[in-house]
């Protein structure tokens, strides 16, 4: 007979203020197998845990039930308590009487107590069927893959590499640097973005422990924590970078001009190009879509002028396989495509309605206007500039429900820059709220007010042309009046969205996204840099809109998590994984279809049947990949799969205890 101890927690008044805790303990003492039932003010505290340790020893307990908060919070805490008392940590069962009783039924304390007693009865029924589980170990490849070469990816790669581990950095654009390389100045200090970003780019390229793949994409990810096998597609550059010296003759002579992605369409580049003069690597690629030779079979100018013979039109894509132990997702963001939905702002038809990122290029000394603020339609200096915030943000009807977090600050920066560069210009900022949560951020915004920016609280309903100007119609809710203002340039602070392809990449890598396709963290507060798949970590705006300081902080945090994983040659694997009883399995593989972690593979077993040796297919679980979700156990028709710690027998015992 199992000797079960039940420990009911008050959680101060969190549970005790609603649920009659002593009554729960009293009821528990009569459940089968229970030899001790007691309560305490804070079971998770040091004296609370000591009470459990002492009780295990004194009453020779073999199973423990803790009735307290959600197991997500303290299951591990109490498992360690059991371990200290010499019990296998998996002989613990938690009854959640806080979230599921005290909090959910605050207004009905009597019924909350009744439910708490039921949940404890359930836990006791399961506890009496618990078996000890033992963690296994898996080897760890101490090499990391970082996907995305913006400031998040660069920071994570450098931190991991500086800790002495090998890093592979994959970037799909021809250069690393990401969005930060496009920015002019950074708030709130106004230091030059390039001055702090380009040295990092060079450091990444020169680091002996970092292997850099630009113009490359991750094609396939197999394996599991500590043991991933990734396939990287190096897209054909049509230029042999081992021969190329980056002299620039080819892109000078190339006859084809196309809108530059880096200049956000405000400037042009050639068909053979480097994205910007400080690009890393500073060697070109041929954009085959626009190259005359690839389109029409004629030209070959770059090949003729190249002094080192580096042009290679025959170059194909290359597939590279790498083994890594951890993956850092740092895929960043893109801007919401406002021109597709905002008809009231002209669907992108008016050249003088631009995005904030275009404005960054416009005001950047290395940008298409050499840093002069000139309106795109006719190159005139604007005398009246209108900024519109929340274009696509906080707008579930046309855009996204969330706040993009960075727009209030960069718009304040832009307003300041206009007033600084164009004395006498009028600046209007239409806003709903000014959100400046950050060190020295509010002070920066107040400075912009002092500069003379007109902040008008209200959204813009319409932008329309009148002569060579634009009329912006809004409301000033501070005055309680509709307002109109003539503008030479309108800058839209468009919403931050996950970078294109983020959701597909998530499926490929095996992590989950939220409803907006931002990558989901394992816990919003306590595990903010881990994905919900072991061994995969998140850095920067791919997890949610973030400014540069937060991005860098998260990247360093992700790197620290990777280093912790790499600190040992082997790691303990969670034992609560699925297990196939191969005698019962008849190989239908329904389990494989429902497994979200691709942890189930068919294997062939040979056995003797009626004196003959036969071979048949059965399912097999890769315990390194299995995250213990239990989906397979439900899909399994013959009941051949059990999730350890949640076996069919245990779960049915719980159901019986609750319902019979």
């Amino acid at each position, binding site marked *: 007979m199992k000797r079960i101890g039940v420990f009911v927690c008050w959680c101060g008044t969190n549970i005790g203020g609603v649920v009659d805790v002593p009554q729960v303990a009293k009821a528990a003492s009569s459940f089968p197998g229970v030899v001790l039932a007691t309560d305490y003010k804070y079971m998770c505290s040091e004296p609370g845990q000591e009470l459990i340790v002492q009780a295990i020893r004194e009453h020779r307990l073999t199973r423990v039930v803790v009735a307290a908060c959600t197991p997500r919070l303290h299951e591990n805490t109490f498992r360690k308590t059991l371990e200290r008392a010499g019990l296998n940590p998996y002989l613990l069962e938690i009854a959640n009487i806080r979230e599921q009783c005290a909090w959910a039924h605050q207004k009905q304390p009597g019924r909350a107590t009744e439910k708490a007693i039921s949940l404890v009865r359930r836990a006791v029924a399961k506890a009496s069927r618990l078996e000890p589980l033992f963690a296994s170990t898996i080897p760890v490849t101490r090499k990391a893959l970082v996907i995305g070469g913006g400031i998040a990816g660069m920071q994570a790669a450098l931190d991991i590499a500086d800790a002495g581990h090998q890093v592979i950095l994959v970037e799909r654009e021809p250069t690393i640097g990401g969005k930060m390389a496009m920015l002019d100045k950074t708030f709130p200090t106004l230091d030059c973005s390039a001055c702090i970003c380009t040295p990092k780019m060079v450091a990444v390229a020169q680091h002996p422990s970092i292997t850099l793949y630009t113009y490359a994409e991750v094609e396939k990810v197999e394996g599991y924590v500590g043991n991933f096998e990734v396939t990287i597609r190096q897209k054909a550059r049509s230029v042999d970078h081992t021969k190329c010296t980056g002299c620039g003759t080819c892109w000078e002579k190339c006859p084809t001009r196309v809108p530059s992605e880096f200049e956000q369409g405000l400037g042009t580049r050639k068909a053979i190009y480097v994205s910007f003069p400080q690009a890393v690597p500073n060697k070109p690629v041929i954009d085959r879509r626009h190259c005359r030779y690839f389109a029409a079979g004629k030209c070959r100018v770059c090949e003729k002028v190249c002094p080192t013979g580096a042009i290679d039109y025959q170059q194909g894509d290359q597939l590279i396989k790498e083994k890594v132990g951890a993956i850092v997702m740092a895929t960043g963001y893109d801007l919401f495509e406002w021109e597709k939905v905002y008809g009231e702002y002209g669907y992108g038809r008016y050249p003088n309605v631009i995005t904030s990122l275009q404005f960054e290029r416009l005001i950047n000394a290395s940008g298409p206007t050499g840093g002069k603020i000139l309106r795109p339609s006719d190159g005139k200096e604007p005398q009246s500039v209108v900024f519109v915030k929340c274009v696509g943000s906080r707008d579930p009807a046309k855009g996204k429900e969330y706040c993009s977090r960075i727009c209030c600050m960069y718009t304040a920066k832009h307003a300041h820059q206009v007033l600084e560069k164009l004395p006498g210009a*009028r600046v209007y900022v239409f806003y709903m709220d000014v959100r400046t949560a950050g060190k020295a951020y509010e002070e920066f915004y*107040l400075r912009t007010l002092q500069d003379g920016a*007109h902040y008008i609280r209200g959204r813009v309903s319409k932008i329309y042309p009148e002569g060579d100007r634009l009329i912006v119609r809004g409301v000033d809710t501070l005055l309680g009046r509709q*307002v109109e203002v003539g503008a030479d340039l309108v800058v839209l602070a468009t919403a931050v969205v996950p970078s294109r392809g983020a959701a597909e990449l998530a499926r490929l890598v095996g992590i989950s996204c939220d409803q907006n396709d931002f990558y989901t963290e394992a816990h919003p507060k306590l595990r903010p840099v881990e994905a919900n798949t072991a061994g995969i970590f998140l850095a920067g705006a791919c997890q949610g809109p973030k400014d540069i300081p937060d991005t860098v902080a998260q990247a360093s945090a992700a790197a620290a998590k990777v280093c912790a994983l790499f600190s040992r040659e082997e790691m303990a694997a969670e034992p609560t994984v699925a297990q196939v009883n191969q005698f019962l399995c008849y190989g239908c593989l329904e389990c494989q279809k429902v497994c979200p972690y691709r942890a189930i593979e068919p294997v062939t077993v040979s056995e003797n049947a009626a004196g003959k040796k036969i071979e048949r297919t059965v399912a097999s679980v890769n315990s390194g990949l299995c995250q213990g979700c239990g989906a397979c156990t439900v899909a399994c028709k013959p009941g051949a799969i059990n999730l350890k710690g949640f076996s069919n027998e245990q779960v049915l015992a719980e159901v019986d205890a609750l319902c019979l």
Partner: protein
Amino acid sequence: MSQVQGGIGIINLSAGDPSLVNEIKELGGEELLECIQCAKCAAACPMVLAGFPFFNKRVIQAILLGLRDALLDDSSIWACQSCNRCTEVCPREVNPFEIIQAMRRVAIREFALPTLAIEGLKSLYDTGHAVYLAGAGNTRAKVGLPEKPPSTLSYPEALKEVRTILENTELAELGVIPMGESGVTDSCEV
């Protein structure tokens, strides 16, 4: 209203006068740009209760946008009761009361003041009281007070001083009220 165009009641911000901000700063509203429109002043203001459209924080917002005409065409700034609660509660030491006073100065320069204000000023010049009730003597006597209060009414030399002060203000140059023509004439040197 010149700032209204493009539709009824729409304010055209492009017609706003950027010089208004500096004018107000020079006339006593130095801390104008400190305002973040938090509306704590409005929460303490009796003008809001009385239903005036341009109460303290809206006066400030309108000044920041240079809406001179909109402010001058409205009688709101003259409704301030000078209770000074706004100044007491303002978290950024903007001193909204002083800004309203400054806006009144702007208005007077353009003769944009209500008749009631002119009458008050005239009464101040004539009697030393902005509000002077001619029949008050009887009421005072009924409750056992001297008919004339111990103010300029009892001390003509004090009234003379008040007039001298008024004659040395911009009001004399503007000629908003007749000075030196009624009452005691010897105070007018011109």
